[in-house]
């Protein structure tokens, strides 16, 4: 049913998904840029130098639109969910506040990095700015994830409801910042974001490699592929480890969410099977494959553990999240495994000095770039929908938090329409800006002036 609260939910989800597309690239470009410039200085390579300059240009475009969409989200939080922000404002506003300073670090350093490139006589000083930009973007992600962790595992306050209004007491802001799931979530989100962005960037380099008209350009793009392949492999391995740890945490901290994600249509039990695929229809799970004992084995890393995993039938007295989260979870894990294996294969070929720029490999990079974004978005959908109907787990529902003013609908539709223009435009525009300059000319220009002063 389309209530205003549901519209708020849709609007928030839509703008968040759009923001995520931009942010994954911003973060990975910032990190990759730092590596590229370091290699440019160390190896005195014009290829890395030109790659750095191109990435810097793309970064400032993504930053411009990313900060705007981030501001939209920040304002939407209090405009669409005022009661939620009342709780956050009283209990857990500190991560937002920390994030502002990370944001300043990123924006001021980025401005200096891009607009005053030639000012720095010592190139390592300029490179340090890129490190600070990367630190700023990653820290922003860390602090925002702290808020999400608080929503999943709230702590640092007591509450009661009086006449339908929440009354807060015993507030401890630092305990709220360090909520139980914070570390797990942060490690998974940061590595996952870097994974999705690095694969997307690799896909971009692969497309350009294929389109390149000269050996020089192909050499340059193959260097881009190498760097992003290593970053992607390291980050996806870490994302897998932290994701596994997050699932174990869910078993104790959010058992209903865990059971819904695994679609455990049984009572809490030991030796639980792993369900691959499957849709819950009229009380029955159809179209899935059950592998006996596998879920317990993965959860407890033991073949014959007697420990139990949560099952939904033991939680019939509490609301369940929409059960399609099982499919989004499977998409995340299955897709993540595929892109991880591809990254491993790619890095293996690079290390062994084999050709990694054949047509099949380039096509694989393109597919991996798209799939990694799908995996990343599926992860967020699993996390957010899996918490429903709560906005703050077991404290406040989405319905209770929502702004139910009818004015939200027409303007919300306008925002959505506007995003449909702005997000594709951002990707098109950055690609066009970079494509407009000839790689060969840029390399020539850099060769004539590229001197490295490391004094």
């Amino acid at each position: 049913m389309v209530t205003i609260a549901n519209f708020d939910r849709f609007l928030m989800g839509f703008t968040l998904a759009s923001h995520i597309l931009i942010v994954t690239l911003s973060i990975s470009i910032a990190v990759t840029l730092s590596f590229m410039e370091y290699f440019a200085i160390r190896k005195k390579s014009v290829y890395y130098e030109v790659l750095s300059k191109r990435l810097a240009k793309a970064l400032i475009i993504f930053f411009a639109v990313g900060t705007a969409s981030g501001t939209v989200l920040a304002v939407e939080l209090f405009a669409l969910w005022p009661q939620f922000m009342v709780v956050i404002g009283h209990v857990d506003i500190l991560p937002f506040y920390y994030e502002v300073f990370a944001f300043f670090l990123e924006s001021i350093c980025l401005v200096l990095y891009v607009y005053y490139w030639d000012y720095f006589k010592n190139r390592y000083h300029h490179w340090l700015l890129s490190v600070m930009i990367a630190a700023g973007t990653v820290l922003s992600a860390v602090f925002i994830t702290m808020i999400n962790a608080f929503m999943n595992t709230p702590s640092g306050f007591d509450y009661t409801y009086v006449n339908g209004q929440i009354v807060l007491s015993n507030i401890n802001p630092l305990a709220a910042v360090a909520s139980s799931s914070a570390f797990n979530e942060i490690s998974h989100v940061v590595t996952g974001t870097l994974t999705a962005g690095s694969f997307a960037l690799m896909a971009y380099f692969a497309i350009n490699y294929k389109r390149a008209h000269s050996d020089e350009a192909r050499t340059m793009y193959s260097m881009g592929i190498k760097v992003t392949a290593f970053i992607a492999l390291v980050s996806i391995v870490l994302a897998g480890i932290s994701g596994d740890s997050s699932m174990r945490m869910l078993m104790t901290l959010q058992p209903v969410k865990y059971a819904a994600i695994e679609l455990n249509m049984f009572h809490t039990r030991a030796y639980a099977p792993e369900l691959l695929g499957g849709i819950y229809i009229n009380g029955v799970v159809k179209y899935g494959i059950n592998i006996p004992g596998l879920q317990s084995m993965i959860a407890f890393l033991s073949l014959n553990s007697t420990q139990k995993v949560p099952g939904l039938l033991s939680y019939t007295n509490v609301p369940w999240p929409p059960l399609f989260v099982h499919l989004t979870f499977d998409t995340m894990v299955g897709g993540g495994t595929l892109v991880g294996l591809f990254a491993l294969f790619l890095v293996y070929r690079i290390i062994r000095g084999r050709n990694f720029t054949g047509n099949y490999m380039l096509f694989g990079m393109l597919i991996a770039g798209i799939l990694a974004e799908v995996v990343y978005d599926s992860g967020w959908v699993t996390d957010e929908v899996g918490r429903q109907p709560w906005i703050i787990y077991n404290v406040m529902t989405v319905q209770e938090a929502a702004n139910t003013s009818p004015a939200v609908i027409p303007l919300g539709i306008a925002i959505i329409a506007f995003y449909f223009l702005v997000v594709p435009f951002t990707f098109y525009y950055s690609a066009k800006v970079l494509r407009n300059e000839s790689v060969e000319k840029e390399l020539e220009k850099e060769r004539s002036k590229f001197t490295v002063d490391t004094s």
Partner: protein
Amino acid sequence: MIQVEVALNAIIFSMFFALISTELMAASAITLKYEESEKKVFKFLVPIWEITGTFFVFYAVNIEALVPSAIPLIAYTFISYILIFLILYVGRNAAIISAEFIWKNRFVKKQTLYRIYAFITYLLGILILIVYTALLSGVGINYSARTFDISRFLLFLPDDGFIIGSAILIFGLAAVFYGLRVNRYLPLLVTILGLIISGYSFTKLGDLSSPLLLVVPVILTLSLPAMWLFNKTRKISENKIVFQGLMAVSAFFLIYSIYPWLLGRTLNITSILNYSVMQTQIFYTTIIGGTILLVLSIMFFRIFSKNSVSLSEDGERGSS
């Protein structure tokens, strides 16, 4: 005496005001003197506009931390204005970043994009002023129903006067800040006119708690075009740090003069402040974060004052 946490919020707002006013002045210059703006405005605007946006977020988060109980009031009362603001804000960023990197083509010109940016910036300025003025006067706001009646707001002359006067003031100061070629007496005359209209209206928005404090912003604001009259002092008023510093101090005393009242003296802000335990944490974070920000700002202005960003016709950037 103003409470520390409110003072911090007022300082953050003052800094945001100083930055946004430079963008509004840039919008005036771009609209009226585009060719001159290319040389004098863009070298300042291009590296600074992203930092203005960051300051806006800083201010918004500080408000959420300072008075979280007021969030539902603002969210419901101004929901339409907030959502329109968001659309315009994304449009502003898209317009200026496109202008910065646009390549030669038949369809869009750099000048057109900068003019779109200027137009959107005006609209954003008007929206901010409407919400801010409404919160000061309270006219048009139905506190219990959490609605805002724009017609009632516009029928209250001091509301209109404050917005129109502020616009005139910004217009008058633009030539000083960017050193535009205009009659040397014009900025002073326009600034005086803007000050009379906005200042008088401000005193009628709600009863002032400390009317004498208004002397500070009046003197500081007038000093800028006054110094611009004379060749010896012109450089001082055109200095970006001096100008923005004076603007920020003026805004701070403007806020201080009405403290602690909002909504036409019906809401005492100290009655809705956040819990002290949170305020303590916010205070520490502001001090630590503010120090980092200060260091970054010093670094920025040091480099900015030694170099200027240049934009050539094809959008190629470099520093000189």
